[in-house]
């Protein structure tokens, strides 16, 4: 879309809307409420639904606990890749290069790496060298501790003592292609993203920043772009519970001047 940019009217890169799905044992967990879907636990059906609504990308977090369940991941990733034609990221428990390779082979476009990168920062570098920075998303879970932003790992259970801003800069230098920034203080609260954190991180790095944690309303997404300077927003509950469809959210944001990819009707070829 055309927006005013430095006094000039320019076509610009759209900001991205990214629904996030938690998967365990090949099933979407943390309830997704689409009344008309017969199986709301099937990652493929949900992925397809969001794809059709105009999602710009999808993120799947595999929160599988057992090794047995982990074997199902490749299977559903492959099926998702066959049914949607937008980029998607898979994260959760990725600790080795062969896991990354397997996920990319199955059709994932990117992987998100979190705890394993904190334990071994060289892993980001290795993954970026082997597969390109564009497929390495560094996920960082951040919590405010005594007026400082600290990195937490293992799904937020373990404190690392690392300063979040320094860690994110280090991750960029190691070759991460994007930052998925989750505010643990806001996650699940639906009171809005941590805009201060978001803005600090966005200004600190050259790579795109995806805001996560706290979205409960369209306005929160707008703030993340306007004040937080996010390049993309991740949201779960506002979409899962059917409060808004993705196209409603995009329309709202576009009306408020945020460049959005709105559907352009593609003419299907005559069969």
């Amino acid at each position, binding site marked *: 879309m055309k927006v005013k940019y430095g006094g000039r009217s320019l*076509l610009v890169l759209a900001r991205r809307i990214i629904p996030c799905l938690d998967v365990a044992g090949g099933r979407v967990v943390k309830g997704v409420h689409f009344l008309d879907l017969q199986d709301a636990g099937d990652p493929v059906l949900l992925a397809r639904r969001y794809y059709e609504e105009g999602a710009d990308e999808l993120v799947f977090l595999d929160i599988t606990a057992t090794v047995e369940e982990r074997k199902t991941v490749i299977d559903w990733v492959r099926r998702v890749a066959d049914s949607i034609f937008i980029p998607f990221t898979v994260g959760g428990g990725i600790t080795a290069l062969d896991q990354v390779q397997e996920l990319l*082979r199955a059709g994932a476009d990117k992987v998100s790496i979190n705890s394993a990168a904190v334990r071994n920062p060289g892993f980001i570098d290795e993954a970026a060298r082997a597969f390109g920075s564009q497929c390495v998303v560094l996920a960082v879970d951040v919590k405010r501790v005594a007026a400082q932003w600290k990195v937490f790992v293992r799904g937020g259970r373990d404190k690392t003592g690392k300063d979040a801003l320094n860690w994110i800069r280090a991750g960029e230098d190691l070759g991460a292609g994007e930052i998925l920034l989750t505010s643990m203080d806001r996650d699940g609260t639906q009171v809005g993203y941590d805009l201060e954190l978001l803005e600090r991180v966005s200004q600190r790095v050259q790579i795109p920043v995806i805001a996560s944690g706290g979205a409960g309303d369209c306005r929160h997404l707008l703030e993340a772009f306007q004040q937080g300077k996010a390049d993309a927003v991740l949201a779960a509950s506002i979409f899962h519970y059917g409060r808004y469809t993705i196209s409603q959210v995009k329309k709202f944001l576009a009306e408020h001047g945020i460049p959005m990819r709105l559907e352009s009707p593609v003419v299907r070829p005559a069969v």
Partner: protein
Amino acid sequence: MIVVVDYKAGNLYNVAHALRHLRADFVFSADPRTVATASRVILPGVGSARAAMDSLREQGLTDVLRNLEVPFLGICLGLQLLFERSEEEDTPCLGVLKGVVRKFPKSEFKVPQIGWNNVCYKPGTDARRPQLFDGIPDGSYFYFVHSYFAPLVPELTVASTEYVVSFSSAVRKENFWGVQFHPERSGEAGLRLLGNFLDLN
């Protein structure tokens, strides 16, 4: 047979998913004879220009690709490799198209460009019509991931996109087509574009 050139330079799998969806028969191959006798050729690619050119050379593919007379589609790095040279590690490329691929200059924009941007093509008529864009509205969004860009060259540029600068997001010279974006990841518009490529004479 449609050949997707497998030169160990990144993510071929999503191109395969999209081709399967379009019910196209294709093979992955890096064998020069297979590529030389293909009915059409797709050169995908992410990764670095230097590594990709080294790989193409090692497999004996550079001349085979230059001499193709069937429809050819370079995707992302596959478009960049068609030009004479890339600023990325100062790499000599295939030289099918005149021009040099450059890195986005420093600006307030983030590099790489990651995400959906508008692709504006020159409508043209009849023979000059960019068949790759049949049925796709001008200015449609496609998904990009790149740090280097191909220049605007009047006789080659089929479509352009703006990010930091205006650059060629689609190019064509005779049977050689290239797109900077990822049609396999660009929703319905991307599928239509790939379908159009499969329908080219």
